[in-house]
């Protein structure tokens, strides 16, 4: 176990992998590159990775349409980014921690959250972010970059308790790299040499602000040098490359080689095909056709071609997968729609024990509901 005294700066830690081209395993067509090695995943895993990417894409479309129909609230789409989300998820062991943002729906699903649980916050349910026992996922982080120092702290905590089989994986966007919390979290990670993997989903945009206005640094990976930690750039639309890079980083976190440092900053270079959220209109700030170049490297298409080339996927299996996805989505939506929460549950879990003043407020709300009924709260009185 490392102590703070071992956190001396380490020359290798400053190696800037950032300026190199992103690591790829599949070319844009899904063919394995000649100099690349397919990660050690079973055929089943490779196929189910594909299925999850496909599920994610379908989930996205369904969520957008539910939002348009007013059945759920603002939704942050992930199309184009599912490959990176699913691949990082596959790289995790069950006990590893995942810290997602509002966009990592697929990563959460892969790491153990039910589809219905992804929909609950969108339905506005009080228990929207509830986490089931045994699932090591954090409630999604909405204030940008705030998860980063927490990820460092969680990794540190596991390390202090000798949980050498447990690492922490923290997602964030390119915009997040500008926040002070990115800096403080990564600097602590470098100093305390904690088992954490920081995945920057560089989707080129922070709402309307393009990557090149976010920072004058050439790459995001090179920012690792400022913290003495390794920075790696990977093609974020290549699920196999993302898997390989994340897997290696997690292994290193748990069991670094001599002189190697635990934390890694991964820049997964990708693109947000759609809007920032359903409340956003990208046409005000970017050209429609910007997406075209990226779509040619689409993660779903590449995985499909890869699996077909490998003889692991055919039309029958594809149809089977589609049916399963459809059934899962329908189930999930049905299970949350119409769900309601008792109003006074807002007083639950504020503190371990309800303080007197909160109990009075809870009673007051109950008595108002009894007196006037629930409709009175929703009436917009004019």
């Amino acid at each position: 176990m490392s102590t703070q005294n071992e956190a001396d700066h380490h020359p290798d830690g400053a190696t800037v992998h950032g300026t190199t081209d992103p690591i790829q395993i599949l070319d844009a067509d899904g063919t394995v590159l000649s100099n690349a090695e397919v990660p050690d995943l079973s055929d089943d895993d490779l196929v189910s990775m594909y299925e999850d990417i496909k599920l994610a894409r379908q989930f996205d479309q369904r969520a957008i349409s539910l939002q348009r129909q007013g059945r759920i609230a603002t939704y942050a789409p992930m199309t184009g980014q599912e490959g990176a989300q699913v691949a990082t998820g596959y790289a995790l062991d069950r006990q590893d921690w995942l810290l997602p943002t509002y966009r990592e729906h697929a990563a959460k699903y892969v790491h153990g959250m039910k589809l219905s649980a992804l929909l609950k916050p969108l339905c506005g349910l009080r228990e929207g972010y509830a986490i089931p026992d045994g699932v090591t996922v954090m409630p999604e982080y909405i204030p940008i970059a705030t998860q980063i120092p927490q990820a460092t702290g969680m990794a540190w905590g596991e390390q202090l308790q000798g949980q050498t089989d447990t690492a922490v994986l923290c997602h964030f966007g390119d915009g997040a790299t500008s926040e002070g919390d990115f800096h403080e979290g990564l600097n602590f990670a470098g100093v305390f040499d904690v088992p954490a993997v920081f995945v920057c989903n560089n989707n080129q945009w922070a709402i309307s602000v393009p990557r090149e206005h976010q920072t004058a640094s050439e790459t995001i990976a090179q920012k690792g040098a400022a913290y003495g930690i390794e920075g790696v750039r990977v093609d974020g639309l290549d699920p196999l490359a993302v898997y390989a890079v994340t897997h290696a980083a997690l292994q290193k976190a748990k069991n670094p080689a001599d002189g190697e440092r635990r934390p890694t900053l991964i820049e997964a270079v990708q693109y947000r095909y759609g809007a920032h959220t359903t409340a956003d209109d990208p046409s005000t700030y970017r050209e429609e056709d910007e997406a075209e170049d990226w779509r040619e490297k689409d993660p779903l298409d590449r995985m499909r071609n890869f699996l077909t080339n490998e003889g692991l996927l055919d039309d029958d299996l594809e149809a089977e997968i589609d049916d399963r996805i459809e059934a899962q989505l329908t189930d999930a939506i049905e299970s949350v729609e119409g769900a309601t929460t008792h109003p006074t549950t807002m007083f639950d879990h504020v503190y371990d024990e309800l303080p007197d003043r909160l109990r009075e407020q809870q009673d007051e709300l109950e008595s108002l509901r009894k007196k006037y009924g629930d409709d009175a709260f929703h009436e917009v009185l004019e």
Partner: protein
Amino acid sequence: MSSTGSDEAATPEEESREGVSQVETETETATATTTETMNLVEAVRNALHTEMARDEHVVVLGEDVAENGGVFRATEGLLESFGDERVVDTPLAESGIVGTAIGLAMTDMRPVAEMQFMGFAYPAFDQLVSHAARMRSRSHGQYTVPMVVRAPYGGGIRAPEHHSESKEAFFVHEPGLKVVVPSTPADAKGLLIASIRDPDPVVFLEPKLVYRAFREDVPTNAYETPLGKAAVKREGSDVTVYTWGAMVHPTLIAADNVADEDGIDVEVVDLRTLSPLDVETVVDSFEKTGRAVVVHEAPKTAGLGAEIAATIQEEALLHQEAPITRVAGYDVPMPLHELEDYYLPQALRIQEGIRETVSF
């Protein structure tokens, strides 16, 4: 200062500032000749446009304010009119935004910085309370921070977590900051112009629930609604309700309802400036009615309602006929949207508060 995207001829700043402030004093009366129908967010935009055209030192900066025109469209069109030196998309970093805005203000610019939501202003808290608020005092008057930090605030729009904050009390507790909250389009324009011209740092909170709720006639000229002055929105003799921002509207509805149903005559005071507080108007109204309710979205405990109640009993206890009731957000994190109607004060709870206070 170099030429800008604006095609309005810019008169030298000092002159025009004086010129305008002469006009302004008349404005709130009947001098304004033309008006235009606007909602609150349009009025904010109009105020920004007006001041940017008048004073080329005014710059707008923040996340997504330029190309995108702001996530609520409050800065739409400014980039086209004033160019990318004066309407600036920044990196995603609130302390950086407020810190650089302080620096801009130190060098005679008049920055208007946007926090995308009030709940995302906390990373800038240190710059606001440790520096913006104290620069004048620390430098013994040599340096000032004529900066405005705008932020949409409040709940009721089914927004995700952290998007519905209403923690105005945090800023009111810091001497040196001014805190302003409009409730109507006309006030939004006049108060924002006054805030931009104000020599001190202003936290300007915009009630996003009513950004598009209604329209009213707003004078098209540059006018100031003076800071530090509350507005009596409804006269009454039985009880005063003090409130601000989005809560003014359900309060006025509640006032009408209790008038109809219970014959209670409610005075409604819209505070408009939360710091410095218009103690005079607060106390005058209370001395008339002898009963008060304070309505705010923020959690009850240590919210601004406490300050108003404490001030009233300090200044006018002998007039007090009933406990001052606080109708406020509960002391819990704002729940996800399914329950926000239960969390926020609604006309229902305000009526109940008024009735209780009057029947005490």
